[in-house]
């Protein structure tokens, strides 16, 4: 069983009943979907978006889209997979809309390694937060959510090569900030 299908049965034991309710327009069905998938959707959004406020907005937009489009869900794949793709697309759209400057990448390229980096060991949360939004999105979508580079490229409107290079750069930075560099 794929990870996404495992998530389905873990998060929503009576998925068939809830889906039938939601497709019939019953508000109880929609709310049951929200309660079941609120946390994983928010977690995905928060890992991609820069702020908690953005992530909560994307959470709301995601479930609005689910309410509107539930009739289009064909039940031939994972429900979580379908919901997750809506959430990821909405989160990436938010990034494009905000167009934050990737100051971390700019500083690394212009200034080079900062002295304090060699003495500073961040924890993983801080290091992840410090990545540029694009790099963090690629790392999270690929390494945690299991999307392929082709799928990530399609969602981002980029090439698979772009996704691969972003992933490698992200891991190079995480390695440095986590203090994992092997002493020469």
């Amino acid at each position, binding site marked *: 069983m794929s990870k996404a299908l495992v998530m389905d049965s873990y998060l929503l034991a009576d998925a068939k009943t809830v889906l039938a309710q939601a497709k019939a327009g019953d*508000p109880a069905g929609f709310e049951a979907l929200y309660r079941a998938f609120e946390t994983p959707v928010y977690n995905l959004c928060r890992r991609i978006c820069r702020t908690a406020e953005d*992530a*909560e907005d994307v959470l709301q937009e995601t479930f609005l889209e689910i309410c509107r489009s539930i009739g289009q869900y064909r039940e031939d794949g994972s429900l979580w997979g379908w919901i997750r793709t809506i959430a990821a697309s909405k989160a990436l759209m938010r990034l494009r809309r905000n167009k934050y400057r990737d100051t971390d990448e700019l500083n690394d390229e212009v200034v080079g390694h900062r002295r304090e980096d060699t003495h500073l060991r961040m924890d993983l949360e801080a290091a992840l937060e410090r990545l540029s939004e694009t790099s963090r999105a690629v790392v999270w979508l690929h*390494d945690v959510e299991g999307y392929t*580079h082709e799928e990530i490229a399609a969602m981002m409107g980029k090439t698979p090569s772009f996704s691969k290079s972003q992933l490698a750069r992200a*891991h190079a930075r995480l390695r440095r900030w986590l203090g994992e560099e092997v002493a020469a």
Partner: protein
Amino acid sequence: MTHLSMEQLVALREPGVEPGTQAARAHLDGCDACRTEFDRLHQRIARLRALPSLRPTRDRWPEVRARFASERRARRLRWVAVAGLAAAASVAIVAGVRSMHRPLPAAVPAELSEAMARSQALEAAIDQYHPESRVLDGRTARIAQELEDRIAAVDRELQNTDLADPGRRQTQELQLWRERVGLLDALVDVHLTRASNVGL
């Protein structure tokens, strides 16, 4: 000795065989430093997957529900407008056809049109209060939500009247539209009462 780059290490984790993978794997097998880096990459990814789930600071379901209800209301208004026109047209057609054979039962279609028009007017009145953007106390919100849910149930039954026995269809439709008008009337009262309580 040239070690594997992060790009090469990351590529080694991909399924399938990419150009240069075989050479990279051969190097990995013979290089302790690169194997250490590869293990660290695996561990880093495992730690990413083990990060605790983040949760929203507050419940966003009420906003989702309110916005979706607002969209559905707007769609129903459009549907009511279209259905009203269609009903008027079908009455005209039926009148045209039946007048050739027997007198038209005028009471039911006219009452149906009247109920639909009243429903449309009440929807417009509710929209003027912009209910989705207002903060309601818990009790009022519950009452409003129950009325909305019952209106949605009536709408579903209205959509299913196509399946009803033709002889009973108009009577059933009239009954449902009247029920809809009653529920919308109550919903207007809820919002009107709340608006007047806060001096609006």
